[in-house]
């Protein structure tokens, strides 16, 4: 088929031309025969016969014009395949290891594609922004509903929608459950550009007080919890003990990566909702106006907030907004770890390229004879280069095929081992990843094939007998030194990360995490309307759980450290005019003992601290040190701000140890605790210290909660150890992965060094033999090989250190209490490299020592 198609391209004029030329040949021959006395017609027949197959000649000449490229390429491929088949062991080794490295790259790239490159599944996702409120202390505060209405008028925004997320209790079903609720304004889905698969979305009339109570379900919730029953539309669900009519189902493609909300309700149903300007309950999603930039939006919104601060100084002083691209919000902290992993994978791939290039160069020298003969028989230099490059490409692409299979496996492994890093994204072998794999294979083929191919081309230019090894020899040395350098960079990066993990893990969180089980619940607002009832219920639950067998003690806290929850309050000290913002938590008496937070001074809360007794608080050591340095903080009175004007006076009764609020590597901030009795709260995290493995007790603890409130949903059952571990899971994950990469790099560099030295020893057997014969000792031989190896290793180490000190800067954000140029890490890494390199040198050196002068000389 291809041939036919190409033939039609054959230029008619050239065709005629060739026909004419060949028939003139036959006629000339016939003329000659005729001159010799043959009759004309017989002469022509004879001429034709002698010419042989005219069509064949035509064909071959034509092919020459048309198929030189294609044909010689196919020939190269055939020849290459034959060679690779002949050297089965070499081919298998290269293809498998290259496949491994390409597979690792493919898997990491798929993560990068899923996390960083794949856009949000909405129309024009880069036009979507998220708006947060800011205060002096926080850049991710909420916005007041009244302020948001003013922001909606901004010209640079095509639409804004309030949003908030909170878990909701789903009751009236067999087992009380919990769904993650998204509370959004009516314009929300319109701004995203999402149309419900069934029914409708949230509308503006749903937002009006007294409007219909509705909800919209995510596709997966509808499928998994309601069996994809269309009859669910119009049904009433009890959410936070209020009936909500299901009015719509979102499409399956709607899997927002920035929120995990499962059921959507109008924002006025958010329990913390308040139209009061002093309260900032919501965030906002917005779409930029056509043509507007995010900078313009920032400037315009800043202007509006400044005006509001002047108009409403009581509520809006120091209030501002921060505008972030939604894609940025989605990627967030994942960017660096993913980039670090990608860089590591690419380093290993480059190293493998250098490695194979070195191997091919060594083999190339062995093929000198073959290349020279092929060259003398008419194969041009360009043709030889192409031939060798084709072989390399065949190798690389076979590696790519193996890599494809391994990448799939690698993706599965990454999915299993790093769910946090992947978030809600799903890495997969899609078109982008396939294109990347193909491009990576071809590029590696060219990379590792180019030097050997060009070397062969140069060699072709030299004559048969010439040795011509200096140029390729230098290149081989450079490649090995380069491998050592890349290995050192990876080892250094891994070393710095290991040191960071070590440093982070050594930090005490401020509590005893062992044998502690935690879980969250929220008392329903309508049943537990009064604060006093909420507090007594919490205390009752803590007491019941404390009585469960094998439970040592139980207590509750508002926002458990490391859980992702946090509270802050504003307070004033008598001798300091400006208000202070500090971390805050309501707890039950006994929390400090249960969590293992040491009481340093004063006393813990007790059952005597009641709603109507004197307001008391416990602070941490940093609070005392910072606000009351050198003086006794117990007995000090502070005023806690309650909204725009009011404040509650409390007296500090005790000082406890510092607790890290979210992560081990954080600084200690001032913290203040009050009792649930004096600051009641519907939400609570139960903290249970057990006598053994805590997880098996989860069900008996839940039953104890249900013995107090039958309809109570309980969620996020986790151990405290898990939470602490999770807080640096990215760091651990990239450390382990990079450590594997570094080990692989070290192995490859060692193989490269070993290969080069072995080859050198083989090549110089006769020289070594002569040296031995004229009196060199085996120790001299050993020294000689080691000297060559050490020179290369040292050059590699020095280059690597230079490279690492430049490149590890990019790791800085992932490091903890280690500078990117920590000398101890560099020294340790260089030491490891030298040890491994010496091992790689030992075997060829031993061979050099055992060279038998007689055998060596006879070889010549």
């Amino acid at each position, binding site marked *: 088929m291809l041939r036919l198609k190409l033939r039609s391209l054959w230029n008619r004029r050239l065709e005629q031309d060739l026909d*004419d030329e060949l028939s003139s040949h036959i006629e000339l021959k016939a003329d000659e025969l005729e001159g010799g006395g043959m009759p004309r017609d017989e002469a022509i027949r004879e001429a034709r016969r002698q010419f042989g197959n005219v069509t*064949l*000649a035509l064909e*071959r000449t034509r092919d*020459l*014009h048309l198929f030189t490229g294609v044909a010689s390429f196919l020939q190269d491929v055939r020849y290459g395949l034959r060679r690779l088949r002949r050297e089965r062991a070499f081919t298998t080794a290269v293809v498998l290891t290259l496949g491994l490295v390409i597979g690792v790259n493919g898997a990491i790239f798929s993560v990068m594609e899923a996390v960083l490159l794949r856009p949000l599944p909405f129309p024009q996702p880069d036009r979507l922004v998220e708006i947060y409120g800011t205060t002096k202390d926080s850049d991710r505060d909420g916005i007041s509903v009244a302020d948001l209405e003013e922001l909606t008028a901004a010209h640079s925004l095509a639409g804004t929608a309030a949003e908030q997320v909170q878990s909701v209790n789903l009751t009236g079903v067999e087992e009380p459950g919990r769904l993650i609720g998204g509370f959004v304004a009516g314009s929300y889905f319109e701004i995203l550009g999402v149309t419900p698969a069934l029914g409708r979305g949230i509308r503006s009339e749903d937002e009006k007080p007294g409007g219909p109570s509705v909800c919209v379900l995510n596709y997966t919730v509808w499928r998994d919890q309601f069996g994809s029953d269309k009859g669910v539309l119009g049904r009433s669900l009890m959410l936070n003990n209020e009936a909500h009519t299901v009015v719509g189902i979102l499409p399956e493609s709607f899997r927002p990566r920035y929120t995990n909300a499962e059921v959507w309700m109008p924002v006025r149903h958010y329990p913390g909702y308040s139209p009061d300007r002093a309260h900032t309950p919501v965030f906002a999603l917005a779409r930029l106006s056509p043509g507007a930039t995010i900078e313009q939006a920032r400037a315009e919104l800043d202007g509006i907030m400044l005006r509001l601060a002047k108009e409403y100084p009581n509520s809006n002083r120091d209030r501002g907004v921060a505008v972030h691209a939604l894609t940025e919000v989605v990627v967030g902290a994942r960017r660096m770890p993913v980039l670090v992993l990608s860089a590591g994978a690419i380093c290993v791939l480059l190293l493998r390229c250098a490695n194979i290039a070195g191997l091919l160069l060594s083999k190339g020298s062995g093929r000198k004879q073959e290349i020279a003969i092929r060259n003398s028989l008419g194969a041009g230099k360009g043709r030889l280069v192409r031939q060798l490059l084709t072989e390399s490409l065949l190798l690389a692409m076979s590696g790519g095929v193996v890599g494809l299979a391994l990448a799939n496996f690698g993706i599965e492994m990454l999915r299993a081992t790093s769910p946090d890093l992947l978030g809600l994204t799903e890495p997969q072998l899609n078109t982008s990843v396939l294109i990347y794999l193909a491009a990576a294979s071809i590029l590696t083929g060219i990379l590792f094939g180019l030097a050997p191919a060009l070397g062969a081309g140069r060699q072709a230019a030299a004559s*048969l007998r010439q040795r011509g090894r200096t140029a390729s020899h230098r290149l081989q040395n450079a490649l090995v030194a380069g491998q050592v350098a890349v290995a050192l960079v990876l080892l250094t990066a891994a070393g710095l990360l290991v040191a960071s993990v070590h440093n982070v893990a050594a930090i005490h969180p401020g509590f005893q995490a062992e044998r502690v089980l935690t879980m969250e619940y929220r008392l329903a607002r309508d049943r537990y309307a009064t604060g006093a009832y909420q507090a007594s219920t919490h205390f009752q639950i803590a007491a019941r759980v404390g009585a469960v067998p094998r439970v040592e003690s139980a207590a509750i806290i508002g926002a458990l450290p490391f859980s992702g929850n946090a509270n802050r309050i504003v307070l004033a000290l008598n001798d300091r005019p400006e208000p202070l913002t500090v971390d805050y938590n309501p707890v039950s008496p006994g929390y400090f003992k249960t969590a293992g937070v040491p009481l340093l001074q004063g006393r813990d809360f007790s059952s005597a601290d009641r709603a109507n007794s004197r307001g008391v608080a416990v602070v941490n050591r940093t609070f005392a040190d910072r606000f009351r340095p050198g003086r006794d903080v117990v007995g000090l009175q502070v005023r806690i701000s309650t909204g725009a004007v009011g404040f509650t006076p409390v007296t500090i009764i005790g000082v406890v140890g510092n607790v890290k609020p979210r992560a081990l590597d954080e600084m200690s901030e001032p913290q203040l605790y009050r009792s649930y009795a004096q600051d009641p709260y519907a939400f609570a995290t139960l903290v249970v210290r057990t006598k053994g493995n805590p997880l098996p007790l989860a069900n008996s603890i839940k039953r104890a909660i249900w013995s107090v409130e039958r309809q109570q949903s309980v969620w996020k059952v986790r151990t405290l150890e898990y939470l602490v571990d999770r807080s640096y899971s990215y760091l651990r994950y990239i450390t382990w992965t990079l450590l594997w990469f570094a080990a692989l790099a070290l192995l490859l560099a060692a193989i490269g060094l070993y290969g080069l030295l072995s080859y050198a020893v083989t090549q110089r057997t006769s020289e070594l033999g002569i040296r031995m014969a004229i009196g060199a000792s085996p120790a001299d031989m050993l020294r000689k090989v080691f000297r060559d190896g050490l020179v290369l290793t040292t050059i590699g180490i020095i280059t690597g250190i230079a490279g690492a000190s430049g490149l590890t800067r990019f790791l800085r954000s992932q490091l903890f209490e280690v500078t990117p140029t920590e000398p101890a890490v560099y020294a340790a890494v260089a030491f490891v490299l030298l040890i491994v390199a010496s091992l790689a040198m030992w075997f060829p050196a031993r061979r050099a020592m055992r060279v038998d002068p007689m055998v060596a000389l006879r070889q010549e």
Partner: protein
Amino acid sequence: MPSSLRTDNLQGTIDLLVLKTLAARGTLHGYAISTNIQQISDDFLRVEEGSLYPALHRIEGLGWISSKWGKSSTNRRVKLYSLTAVGRQQLEVEQKRWNDLTLAVRKVLECYG
């Protein structure tokens, strides 16, 4: 007389033969090139037409020879080939390579008698 050698058995040599013939005889058509080689080598080298024309077109593609249509001595319309300046240089290269090769082969043969 040794049996004749078909030139396509010795890849690359046909280029050398064509170049040398054109260098010595000036402008020639394909038929004349093939008969020339055959005659000079006392019929030892027989240039297959199936190899000759592909070779001519290939060499022309490389710019070593050029062609134009003209008249033969018998007044037939024929395609005439002549050596280019590049071809003249290439001839030297090819000739040296051939000499090197034959020298090398001869050395080997003579060495082992």
